Every structure is written in C-alpha cells, then in structure tokens.
C-alpha cells in the first residue's frame, strides 16, 4: 500500500519522465534507422543514427538499454518513427550481452526518420572548426564530464570536455586542478532503484586525472565519493559524473 502511494507520488512528481530498462528496437527507414524502446506497452522514440560527434548516441542490439527521458511537453505532439519522442533523453547501453535484444524492423511506407544531418552513406557535411569558447573564460571554472550508467567510457563529447579543461588549465597556468568522481543512483519509473557499482567513482576520477596528466596538466588533486548519489527519477544522468575544477 505504502509502495503504491509512493509510486503515485512519484508519478505525479516525475510528470512526464520515463526511466526504464528494456531491449532497444531498431526500425529501418528509407534513410537512417530509428531507435525505439518499449515500456509498459507504449513505444518511445529515442533518436536516429547519427555521427560520432553528435549528442545522441544510439543504443545497441545485443544489449539492454537504460532509457531516461522526458516526454515532450505538448501532449498532442506527433509520434516519430511510430514512437512517442523522449527529449532530452539519456541512453546507457548495459554492458552484459543479451542475445534476446535483437529486433530490427524493416522500413515501412509512411514511417520516416526525421531529417538527418548525415545520411546512411558517407558524410556530405563539410567540417567546420567550432568557435572556441575557452578564450572568453576567466577565473575559476568547473567542467563536468558525464557518463552512461555503470560506465567509465568517455564518449566523444566527454572526451572533448576533458580536452577543454586541460587546455583551459594550461592557458591560465592553473595552480589548482581538482578532479572529483561520483557514482549515482537511477530511480526507475517503476520505483526500483539502480545503483552504479562500487569503486566506479574512484575509477572515473583516476581515469580523468590520468588523461589530464597526459595532456600536460600537473598539480591535480583527485578525490572521489564512493557513497552513491541519490536518485530522483528526474535528473539522475547529471549525477553520473566527474567534475574538474580549474582555479588560477
């Protein structure tokens, strides 16, 4: 009973948040494939195949995925690739192989992927150097490296954050660089809690410190909090992190 109340409360509080673990579903289209996932009989749209540099990294067949996303605020918003779009959405590919995650649906007339910056072939985009925001930064700065659940792999974007932080530290000749590692909890929509493995906070922090040293930043202080961060079912992905505080 108390559990039921809790769920009800959680649902009200979570509003349109969905956090669940399931097998991804891949749907082919005339262009790039769409990635979807099913939860409680409803199909959610996660995103399309893109490039390594894009913010969305699709899930993988042969693996379950932890989906943490928000249903678009407009309830009448159209479905995408047959699913209710989650945006923003965080994708964590769970590490263990699961052979039952194997659904690849053929393309169907009428189901199209949203316009993709890069199609399924070679890229048509000319590479442009992004403006460098670092030049405008001054003083003490905090950089945050985010991770997928239970993972210490640095994705492309995270890798760029570390490179940025190192460049900034060198630019201002930082005397103090503090690296703090965390592990976190995810509160699932069904009320279950998933906690990242012990030791992960330290491993994340040590990895980042090693990278910073390799990038020429000395004087790093490394700390980690082994106690998992709490989960609220709303902002959980933001706590799977390492922070790098760079001070002059």
């Amino acid at each position, binding site marked *: 009973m108390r559990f039921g109340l809790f769920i009800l409360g959680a649902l009200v509080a979570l509003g349109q948040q969905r956090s669940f673990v399931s097998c991804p579903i891949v749907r082919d289209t005339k262009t790039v494939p769409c990635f979807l996932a099913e939860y409680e009989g409803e199909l959610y749209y996660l995103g399309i195949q893109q490039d390594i540099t894009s913010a969305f*990294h699709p899930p993988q067949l042969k693996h379950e995925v932890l989906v943490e996303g928000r249903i678009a605020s407009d309830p009448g918003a159209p479905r995408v690739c047959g699913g209710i779009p989650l945006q923003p959405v965080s994708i964590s590919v769970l590490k263990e192989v699961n052979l039952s995650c194997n659904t*690849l649906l053929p393309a169907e007339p009428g189901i199209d992927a949203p316009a993709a910056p890069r199609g399924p*072939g070679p890229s*048509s985009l000319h*590479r442009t150097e992004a403006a460098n925001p670092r030049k405008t930064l001054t003083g003490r700065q905090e950089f945050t490296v985010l991770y997928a659940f239970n993972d210490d792999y*640095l994705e492309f974007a995270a890798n760029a954050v570390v490179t940025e932080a190192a460049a900034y530290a060198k630019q201002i000749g930082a005397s103090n660089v503090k690296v703090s590692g965390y592990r976190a909890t995810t509160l699932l929509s069904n009320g279950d809690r998933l906690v990242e493995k012990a030791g992960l906070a330290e491993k994340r922090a040590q990895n980042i410190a*090693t990278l910073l040293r390799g990038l020429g930043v000395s004087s790093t202080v490394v700390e980690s909090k082994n106690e998992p961060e709490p989960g609220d079912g709303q902002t959980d992905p933001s706590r799977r992190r390492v922070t790098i505080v760079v001070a002059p």
Partner: protein
Amino acid sequence: MTGWVGLCYLYERQPQNIMRRLFFIAIVVLVFGIALTLSAQYQDRFKITWIEPGSGALLPEFDAFDSVEGTLGVLNASGPVNTEGHPFFTPLGTNGRACVNCHQPTYAMSVSTAGLLERWRTTDGKDPVFAAFDGSNCPGLPQEKESSHSLLLKRGLFRIPLPWPPKNADGSAKPVEFTIEVVRDPTGCNTSREFGLKSAEPTISVYRRPRPAANLKYVTSGGQPIVLKTGTLADVDPETGKPVSMNLMTDAREPSLKTQAVSAIMGHEQARVAPSDPQIQKIVEYESQVYVAQQAHIFGGPLAVAGGPPGLGVAALRDHRAGVLGDNDYDPVFGSFSSWKGNDYYRSSVARGADIFMFRQFWLRDAAHINSIGLGNPLKRTCATCHNAQMTGQDLSAGWVDVGTTNYPTWTEPATWADSSELPVFKITCARDADPHPYLGRVIYTTDPGRALISGRCVDVGSIVMQQLRGLAARAPYFANGSAKTLREVVDFYDRRFDMKLTDEEKEDLINFLGVL
C-alpha cells in the same frame, strides 16, 4: 613489360595529345594482353625479382613489377636507392635476414605466398626468410620439412611471439582483464615447454602477414592525444613525446617506425646487439619515402593518367596530404572515379566498384570499436565508414576493429568446430569486474586476440588494426591471418559477415576496384 610501365610513369608527366594517348593505351593493352596469353602457357614468363639481402642492387627511382593482373609501381621519392650496406637490405642479426626478406618491392613491400613458394623451390628452403625462429610454424620443428613452414608457404604467415602478460615500457607486467588458455595448437608452439605459454618466458604465438612497409606517411599520421575508441591516452612517440596514430602493426604495439625497426632487428633478424642510431635512421628514411600502388592493369592499361582517377598510382600517393578523412561524398577515400564512368567495360566496372566501396549501404553489426563507440548497433553505413582515411583506406583514428576475422563464430577458420584449424585457438575468459567483449561476452574463442594481447582488455579481443588497402593485387593473401587467398575471398567474407547480398556484378566491380589500388 617493366619498360612499358616505366614509360607510362614518365608519360603521365608530359602533356600529350589525345590521339597519342589513345594509341599509347592501345599498345599497352595489346602488350599486356599478349603477355597474359603467354603467361598462361609459360608461367615463368613473369620473372619475379626477389631482392636478396646484401645483393648490393641499385634500385631506380621508379620501378615496376608484373603480376598476373597488371603491374605494381614502386617509387623512391628521394631518388635511386643504393642498397649496398644499406641497413634495410643488410642482415643486422644472426640469421642472415634483412628487412627486405619480408618487405620486397616486388610484392608491394610485403611478400606474397606465390613469391615465398617460388623462393622455397629455388633455394630448397634455405632462404633466410624461412628461418626457424618465426619463418616456421615453431622453432622446434624439423626445419627441412615443408610441412614445418606450412603457415608461411600456404598463408604467408610469420610467427609473432608476444609475451604474456604484456609488459609496460619499464618491463613490469601490465594488469590484464582475462585469462588465456590454448585449446588448439596445430603448430605445437603455444603448448611447447620451450616456447609456449607455460615456458620460462610465457609467450603467445600468433601468426600474421607482413604489413606493407611503404606509403608510411599515411600510416603514421593523425595521432590524437585521446584515442576516440577507448577514451584513454594514446601512446606517445618515446622520442618526441607526441601522441601517435596507433595504426602500426596488427595490434598497434609499436609507437613509432624507429621502435618498430629496433624490434624487427632484435626479433625477426635475431640480433644480439642493438642496431646503431644511424642504422635506424637510415631504415626509417628509406621506408618513409617509398610508395607502392598498382600502376597498370592488363585490361585497364596505365592507371595513373592525366584526367583519370586522381588517387591511382604512386605519384598520387607521394603528392597527397596524409591524415585526411575521406568518408564523405565530396572528397572520397580514393578520390573520384567519375571520369571512368562510361562505355569502357573494365574501367566502368572499377568506377562502379569505387561507388560500392563509398556508397553501397549495409548493416554493420557487432563490430567492436565501431558499433560500440557511440555509433549504435546496427549501423547502416558503407565500407568507407571503417576504411575512412584518404589514399590508404585505413582508419584515421586508432585503427583497431573487431570485424570478425579472428573471433568465433564469424572467424575465417573452418566454420564447424570439429573441423581442423591451421591456426591456434585460444579461449579467453574475462574477469567478472571487467567490461565484457561487447558482442561476445565473457568467454571468447579466437585465433588471434589482436589488440587485447597488448592492452590486456577484454573489449579488445579480436580487434585488428586495419591494413592499408594499396598494392593489394601484388601481395595476396589478405587479412592479418592470410585467410583470404584472393580479393574475391575478401569480398565473400564481407558479403557473409554483413549479409550484404551483393550481386555477382557488384562483387566483380568491387574486386576490380580493389585490384587497381
């Protein structure tokens, strides 16, 4: 024959009018055609020029070597090379070998099984290339027997002994995430008390093809501080401290051409004394200026001609910038082939093959270090997604990928477990707290763990660093384990592996395309 192609090379440097060009092409095609017909009757019409160590030969700036399908061009960009006393061509160790034994200009600075077989016959197996240490299946075997060198003679494979566990630069053992057991040992080397995993110096023997020691500016360019595929620091060049491309060797174990040359001399050449700095310098200078590429084809005529595909031939390799991404539709991996689209049967087939390589979509599935690095599984893309660097088709980032050649069940070895394998089979068991292999889990059977033998990581088992795709026609067989005897077998592998459903015509086109690189 060689003279003709030499002419082609010179010819492309001079502006000529169209009629003369057509006439010239016609003559070349005719001569090639006749040569081919003759060669069918008299196999040794095509004389192979095997350079012996210490021969003192003078190598011209441009040279050309015939193979069955056409001609390989070899360019010494800094001029003729005097091999007299040159450390690449002179034995520096104890077994009579020099680099050139295994990196022959004739075979695109690798060596083909055809060449090795002929060498076995003409020297009665005495050529130093067959040295017991790594030119036989295992040093303990009776060396006079052909069967003791079967992997080299049949598949072009040298034994690569690697210490297990791997060592850090300071000699300490690296932490590793898995245990390794030998479950099949057809060569006897991995279970040998003297050379194997349980010997005084525990060693894993894998068997690999020599990678071309040419076009190396492309192989060594493009190092980034953080390796995209692992999110960890790239190895650095011990001399300059700069991050390296991690595209050298099947497992990226060598950070620089210098360290590679020293290891080759201490290993393949079994030297007891380390080579001198000037010797290493000279080796690296030589291999950094030598370019190989197909230069002419029996049906296609000279490949590098004005107005033709700009990426073909050795001069293009010499002149092009290294480290450029080619996985795009405006400036593709091997340049545009559109000028060959037309009614010439052979050339339009090559041009279609180039399009297949760049544009023919299929589902890339279960390839660790491609699908697992944020691109998703499956990924609807093309050959050029993996083979993305301009001019060589390697990976611009660190090049290791498990494309499935060495790991069960996609491996190229006998499909059924009961069949005998010519290669050793290892069982890898990953620790519970390690990240498993993304598609094979925690127990993996493999004929070559590849990058994992160096990194000690489970996710790397079966990841092989892509080779450059140049001079292919001159250096069969293919893949690090020599399992594809022909380019057709390479294409068949991909057709099976990724369920590409290539038509016979598409296969032919792709083969023709790979054959002109």
